[in-house]
């Protein structure tokens, strides 16, 4: 018993140290300060506060599992201890940073940061505030842990929604539908303050969300218990698709110009992700140079339509098939030599290929054809009959059409002969080959299809921006697309759609977030691989593959139990 207690104290100490380090890191990276004036509830809680306190809360909450056998008083003691340690570490940071000016090296260790951490109170008292803050977070973790799951879930959702709506105050007020009176004056008058929500608005929103989740969360189970006929299921799915479709069509006029711009870039990335999903998700080939095909699509469109280059002056619709053809050709030409390679070598070769394309587009050598660093301007925009599709809102429909088409093709391909061949190759190439699948042909198909979709996305990018620059096609674009499909769920089409919406939409809407975007993507990739390699919205087959090893272990564990049962 004594041993157990000391192990728990040790765990509590560890948790405190780790969460303290995390909070210090988040502060020093500059998130607390740059989000310090993004208030969620005006003059009360800012996004910066949430960002440095949330990890402490989450880590302490996660640690409770290891001592959930203890009495609640002991649990409270452990958790508040962890919190106090985290607070103590922040105090050390503040003391150290105030005594020595370390801003030459750590650019964000400024007095402003320290004041924000201490909620505006000066040092001797501020140190006390920091420790108190940690301790309270520990207590809050225990409070949440001991709640009924249904309540806990509802409260968590309430917090998430308040944070989300509060953060997006400026953007929401920009949306077109908000401009309608009385909604506009109600929102501006009561719900939103100068920055973030008003206290009244925050509490109201929180209560609404909590109530909604509490009551709906209870009802969902009842619905699930009712046995549904396939007929009914299909009908309900159809209605859901119908509603989603109409909602998507209404988005640009309802949300306005700012959101249309965001939606366009989200759409282009979803289009690319659907393509890479075929290569990585279906066929299991890690392609890090995917941006190359995107560039080829965009540049072909530019070269063939821009009067600036003066080669062809084709219209958008005439150049589109050429751009697609070039992308597919590039996919095949690159694919043929590299597809014999093993997984990780393939990744590096494709990365090299993507970089070569960018460097060539950037060089003076190909400047007469590709425009060099200045890129190519005045790309033709599509025209249907007399209607020119040239505003962001109109392009949105074009992109939406593209996504619909590509998603449909993806779904059909997945269950086709070649789709099953991809799955077989992904799981075991040698066995697949022994079963009569031609691996080179199947992989080539995957590469070509992926390149086709990227080429389509690139052409639409050209039409949207009416200009292309080599700087838009760096390695980081490939990583962006890869993050979308990995976090969404490799091989899962809904996963890609939601992943794209979240990963591209959030930084697009929340422009302050842009600076920390890659940090989050990197951390998310690592966390996903460590905890949930199948992604957030996984495909069933993939999930089985990735957890195969665990299942085997489980079976081994079970066997003796079954035998002894006999």
């Amino acid at each position: 018993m004594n041993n157990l207690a000391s192990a728990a104290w040790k765990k509590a100490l560890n948790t405190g140290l780790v969460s303290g380090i995390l909070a210090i890191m988040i502060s020093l990276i500059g998130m607390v300060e740059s989000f310090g004036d993004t208030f969620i509830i005006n003059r009360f809680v800012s996004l910066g506060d949430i960002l440095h306190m949330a990890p402490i809360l989450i880590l302490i909450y996660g640690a409770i599992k290891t001592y959930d056998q203890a009495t609640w008083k002991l649990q409270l003691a452990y958790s508040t201890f962890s919190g106090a340690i985290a607070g103590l570490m922040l105090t050390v940071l503040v003391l150290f940073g105030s005594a020595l000016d370390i801003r030459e090296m750590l650019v964000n260790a400024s007095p402003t940061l320290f004041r924000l951490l201490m909620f505006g109170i000066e040092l001797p008292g501020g140190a006390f505030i920091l420790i108190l803050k940690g301790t309270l977070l520990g207590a809050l973790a225990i409070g949440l842990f001991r709640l009924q799951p249904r309540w806990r879930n509802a409260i968590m959702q309430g917090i998430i929604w308040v944070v989300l709506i509060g953060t997006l105050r400026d953007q929401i007020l920009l949306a077109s539908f908000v401009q309608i009176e009385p909604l506009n004056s109600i929102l501006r008058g009561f719900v939103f303050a100068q920055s973030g929500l008003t206290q009244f608005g925050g509490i109201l929103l929180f209560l609404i969300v909590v109530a909604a989740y509490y009551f709906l969360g209870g009802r969902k189970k009842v619905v699930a218990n009712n046995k549904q006929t396939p007929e009914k299921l299909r009908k309900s799915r159809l209605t859901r698709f119908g509603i989603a479709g109409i909602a998507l069509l209404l988005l640009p006029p309802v949300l306005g110009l700012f959101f249309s711009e965001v939606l366009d870039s989200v759409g282009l990335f979803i289009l690319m992700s659907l393509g890479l999903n075929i290569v990585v998700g279906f066929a299991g080939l890690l392609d890090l140079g995917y941006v190359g095909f995107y560039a080829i699509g965009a540049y072909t469109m530019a070269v063939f339509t821009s009067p600036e280059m003066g080669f062809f002056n084709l219209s958008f619709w005439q150049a589109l098939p050429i751009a697609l053809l070039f992308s597919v050709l590039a996919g095949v030409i690159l694919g043929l030599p590299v597809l014999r390679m093993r997984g990780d070598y393939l990744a590096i070769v494709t990365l090299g290929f993507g970089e070569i394309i960018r460097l060539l587009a950037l060089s003076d050598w190909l400047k007469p054809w590709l425009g060099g660093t200045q890129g190519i301007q005045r790309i033709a925009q599509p025209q249907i009959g007399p209607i020119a599709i040239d505003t962001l809102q109109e392009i949105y429909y074009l992109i939406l059409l593209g996504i619909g088409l590509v998603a449909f093709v993806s779904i059909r391909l997945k269950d086709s002969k070649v789709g099953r061949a991809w799955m077989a190759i992904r799981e075991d190439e040698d066995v697949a080959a022994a079963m009569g699948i031609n691996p080179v042909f199947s992989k080539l198909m995957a590469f070509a299809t992926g390149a086709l979709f990227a080429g389509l996305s690139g052409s639409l990018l050209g039409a949207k921006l009416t200009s292309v620059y080599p700087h838009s096609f760096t390695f980081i674009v490939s990583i962006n697309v890869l993050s979308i499909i990995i976090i969404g769920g490799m091989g899962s089409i809904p996963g890609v759609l939601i992943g794209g919406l979240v990963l591209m939409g959030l930084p697009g809407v929340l422009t302050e977030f842009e600076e920390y975007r890659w940090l989050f993507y990197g951390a998310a990739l690592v966390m996903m691989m460590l905890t949930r390699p199948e992604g957030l919205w996984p495909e069933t087959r993939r999930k089985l593959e990735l957890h195969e090893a665990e299942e085997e272990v489980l079976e081994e564990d079970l066997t003796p139990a079954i035998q002894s049962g006999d």
Partner: protein
Amino acid sequence: MLKRWLQTITLTDVVVWAIGLIIGIAVIYGTISTLRADIYSTTQWIDLIIGGFKLGGIYALIALGYTLVYGILRMINFAHSEVFMSGPFTAVFLAKFLHAKGFYNSQPVISLLLITILSVGVSMGIALMLERIAYRPLRNAPRLVPLITAIGASFFLQYTFRGLYGNDLESYPTMKVLQGKLSLGIIQIQKADLIVIIAAFIMMMLLYIVVQYTKMGKAMRSVSEDKETAALMGIDVDKIIVSTFALGGASAGIAGILYVLIFNTAHFYMGFIPGLKAFTAAVLGGIGNVPGAWLGGMILGLLESLGPNLFLTGLGVPAVSQLKDAIAFTVLVLILIFRPTGLLGERLSKAKA
């Protein structure tokens, strides 16, 4: 005989050889016409060769980290470029501090030593943290999982350092002792370059001795041959993996200091391109192979330095030095297509996963 041989040829082979042939002809034609046109003087060529050697030494030292880790874990430690970046990017602040105190120019040897120690320490620390947090839990995962983790870790580290130290290009204060040129016969060489070449060579020799002759090195090689057997022979596999990462991190930290001695700047993005090239060097020499890393680094350094002028000038390409990275990446693509085992072959282990 001929018929049977013809039957074994697939479309893939045809395309691969066509690409090889086109590039080969372009290289030979470019070289001949450059040399004929006699555009560059002998001193220019010598400068380029020296440039190749100094870059090559640095690539070789970074490549060692890729090679050692690949040899043991069969994974590409994509985040190694950030291990390389972290050391000099941290040490630049120490260098500035010493410079401000005047210590930098009065005691250059001690200053350089201190900076190197800090750089090595940080790089090593980052490498060990990577191993512990990101890679160790994934040792038995499917192949792509650790690679994706490594890519994520790479971006995470890049932008963490950017957040910590800022987005600016930090310039190293120049050391007065290292200014100026030495003349060895007909060769004129920058003092800093000479130090870089010699230091890289000595470090490579030392590391080779460590891997080849010390007990730890022997244990490393046996773990890379067969982990289970090595464990049965009483080798602590975990400990060996940790020391491999430490060794790779340390050589990256030293490479980082040599890098800033030449280029004088540190930046959060400084690791990506050298890292990719060092990986190319490792593959070129045969990944998992320490002398191979050295050879690959040197060849790549020379190709990158001489290549643009030698191959491309003759082809009438303007602004050839813009394409030096493209040449390095083309080498990467070609070597992986034609000889993925590298020039000296994968030596640390023969069994392939």
